[in-house]
């Protein structure tokens, strides 16, 4: 049974592409394209100005080059910055009006868009290429005052909120990819949780790149007002293509007083084939701001896909007593490369942060944990604990740990530990003795290795992630 399952999953099962007519902006990156995007989305003037300002800034910025995984130069003029299913010109009012092909795509992906799957109890916002196609469970959420919609919709309906918070965590003047996103972002999710509300269900976004030659630039903005709580999930896939595709998203989280945001990602973009051809460049900027006192932001990520993953979900702990957490599993196989980690910037008093990172590399891949813990002089009595463990399979791959630790406050404590090792022969032997074959044994041991992080994921995701962990390592032993 399991063999069959593995056989099914061995190849990237989300590798199909859907034949849907789409509208694209002309190729290239220039003011006209930005105006085109802004125009087609009927954006107000301030947002267009904001985009153009970002574009001005972009002209003087250079791509960063300090990262470990190097990639061939991206020709930004050879990309489509906007691609939308044609039937979306007039946005459908309900799910019934959706293009059946689209629904089928999401069905293949296992996204519970349709009625019968609503039992799952997860509200989904699906983003197809550049635009958000459907959001479920709207009514239930609206009753509680929760806003969960695409960011384009939010710009139209809640401009005051978007204007107030957009770009406050990731400013226009940030690094190259973040600024690129600010200039050309097409869609994404918007979440606002009103004061004192505990979001009754998991909110989720599903991203999919379909068209070729497109970059996906979505922008997510989550605001948790005083005393609220939200758990947010993100998943992503893309079809198999020979060329590399760029995904440069920005995610901004803002937690006000006593609020808590939990953000989980299961990233499974197309990783390229066995020889490292094709795959997604996942260059994402994710940052959370614990603005109010006693707020909390927790990032959980399972990174198994993408040809290159390059991201550092970060927390700025500004409010006193705020807490930042980062749990990560990164798995690289074949020719995949990952450079990921987090930044914990302690500004407020009594702030706490915790980093648990598990990296597994196999095949010819390269995995880097890069992280920053910075305790500023005013962050009295702050604490950080970091643990990053790496597991290596074979001597063609690499695992690297590059933590930056800055302590400028004498009342604060930082503890960091890291280990790198391989699966011990004894453990393997023991498992095999009990009747597991080598691959199953490795799967079991790896799942144990990742357990601390997997526990942090919501139920439904945890099961999927656990499977994904096993599949990603197929063929790496023996």
């Amino acid at each position, binding site marked *: 049974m399991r063999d069959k399952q593995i056989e099914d999953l061995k190849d990237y099962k989300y590798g199909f592409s859907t034949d849907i007519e789409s509208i694209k902006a002309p190729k290239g990156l220039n003011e006209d394209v930005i105006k085109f995007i802004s125009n087609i989305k009927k954006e107000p003037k301030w947002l267009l100005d904001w985009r153009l300002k970002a574009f001005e800034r972009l002209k003087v910025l250079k791509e960063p080059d*300090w990262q470990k995984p190097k990639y061939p130069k991206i020709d930004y003029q050879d990309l489509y910055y906007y691609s939308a299913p044609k039937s979306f010109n007039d946005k459908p009012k309900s799910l019934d009006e959706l293009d059946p092909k689209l629904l089928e795509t999401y069905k293949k992906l296992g996204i519970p868009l349709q009625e019968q799957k609503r039992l799952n109890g997860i509200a989904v916002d699906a983003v197809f290429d550049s635009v958000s196609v459907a959001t479920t469970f709207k009514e239930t959420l609206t009753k509680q005052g929760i806003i969960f919609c695409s960011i384009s919709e939010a710009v139209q309906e809640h401009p005051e909120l978007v204007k107030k918070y957009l770009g406050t965590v990731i400013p226009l003047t940030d690094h190259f990819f973040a600024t690129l996103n600010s200039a050309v972002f097409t869609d994404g999710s918007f979440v606002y949780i009103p004061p004192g509300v505990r979001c009754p269900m998991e909110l989720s976004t599903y991203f999919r790149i379909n068209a070729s030659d497109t970059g996906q630039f979505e922008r997510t903005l989550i605001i948790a007002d005083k005393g609220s709580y939200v758990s947010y999930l993100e998943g992503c896939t893309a079809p198999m293509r020979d060329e590399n595709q760029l995904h440069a998203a920005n995610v901004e989280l803002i937690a006000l007083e006593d609020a808590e945001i939990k953000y989980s990602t299961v990233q499974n973009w197309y990783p390229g084939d066995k020889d490292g051809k094709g795959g997604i460049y996942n260059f994402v900027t994710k940052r959370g701001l614990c603005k109010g006192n006693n707020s909390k932001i927790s990032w959980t990520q399972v990174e198994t896909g993408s040809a290159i993953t390059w991201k550092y979900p970060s927390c700025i702990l500004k409010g006193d007593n705020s807490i930042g957490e980062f749990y990560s599993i990164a798995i690289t196989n074949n020719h995949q490369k990952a450079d990921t980690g987090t930044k914990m910037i302690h500004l407020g008093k009594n702030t706490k942060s915790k980093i648990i990172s598990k990296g597994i590399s196999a095949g010819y891949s390269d995995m880097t944990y890069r992280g920053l813990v910075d305790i500023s*002089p005013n962050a009295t009595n702050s604490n950080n604990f970091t643990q990053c463990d*790496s597991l*290596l*399979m*074979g*001597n*063609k*791959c*690499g*695992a*690297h*740990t*590059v*933590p*930056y*630790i*800055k*302590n*400028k*406050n*004498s*009342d*604060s*404590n*930082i*503890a*960091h*530990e*890291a*280990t*790198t*090792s*391989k699966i011990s022969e004894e453990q393997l032997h023991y498992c095999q003795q009990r009747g597991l074959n080598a691959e199953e044994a490795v799967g079991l041991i790896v799942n144990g290795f990742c357990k601390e992080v997997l526990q942090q994921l919501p139920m439904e995701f945890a099961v999927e992630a656990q499977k994904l962990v096993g599949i990603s390592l197929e063929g790496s032993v023996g």
Partner: protein
Amino acid sequence: MEEQLKIDFEKNLKNFSYSDQEKKFKEINFKEFLKQGFPNRKLENWKFSDLSQIIKSNIGELSFYNNYSKENQIEKIELINELEHNKLIIVDGKIVKIDFKFEDKDKIEVLVDQSEKTIRKNINSLINLNNAFSNKFCKIIIKKNYSLKKPLVIYHSTNKNTHFSNTNSRIDFKLEENTCLRVIDIFKDNSEKNFINIYYNFELDKSSILKNYKIDKTINNNVKYSYNNVNQEADSISETFILSSGSKFFKNEINCDLQGQHSSAFVNGIFDLDEENHHEIKSNINHLVENTKSYQLVKSVLEKKSKAVYQGKIFVSSEAQKTDGYQLSNAILLSENSEFNAKPELEIYADDVKCSHGSSSGSLDENSIFYLMSRGLNYKEAKKLLINGFLLDVIEKITDGEIKNLIKDLMGVKE
């Protein structure tokens, strides 16, 4: 500064007799330095300390030419009395005395006036600067199967008239098979506001042992940089201990290539900083073959506005299976203005390895102080006792008994 550099460089070429080949070598290095300048924050290795800024704010304009000919006499240097030793005295970057009086003469070969023709590898701009301006360097060869009876103490000193100068020195050591050498570096500064640049090359043949102890205890206003390059063959051992304390700024860089099986490297360090001192240790341990071992331990005690940086890197190549690499740094911040930065880095390409690192920083444990005070010590004594215990860990790692005691005395640490 560029003008001054060019003038000084020309002067240097003119006033010392170099062969054409040497001149060429110096010119290549000089051009490279001009291109790169003093290291700044843009370089990953200097992320936490910007040398060009440090020189600007602490020294100002530097001059690069040292006229050795006129002042050949040795300034009065306080020598170590506690320990019988061989001497090597460097004043303003120039070796003024070499004395191996305790050793068999035919077992040690000292080659002065050595010169290099080609750049073997481009390390950093400061080594280029050293190559361009240092006088002919000295090479010390320890002959097969000989262990030096007494340690070699290298005194680094400056002339009392030397100010706002850059001094460069370089020594190469070759330890032939089955030899043992202990080197103690001691800094005795007679003048202020200089930039002292030291470059050592160690070649360790089979089964040789090198112990290098760097002691920077005298309080002074100089900016120092030291680079140790260690190449290790099979079964060799290198031990480096750094006591970083007195200078305004001191960066110790250690690069260890473990090229032979069963070779091992140990790097231990203490930062004991006060006032506005800013010190850094950067280590690069490269495990290149199977069955090699490295161990690093760095502890810091930081007072007032001082700042310590520890950047330790363990590199394991894909051939270097069965590597054992360990790295630990602890820091105690005693003042709210002190700062500790660390970047413990692992870069690993082999799977059958055991590598780990740990780093912690924080304040003194109040409970321990309370415990000691309840036993009758006052706050100051309790604090001192705890700090001594904390630092003793590193001192105990010193494998040489004589030198361990010397360092304990210097630091006022008693068991």
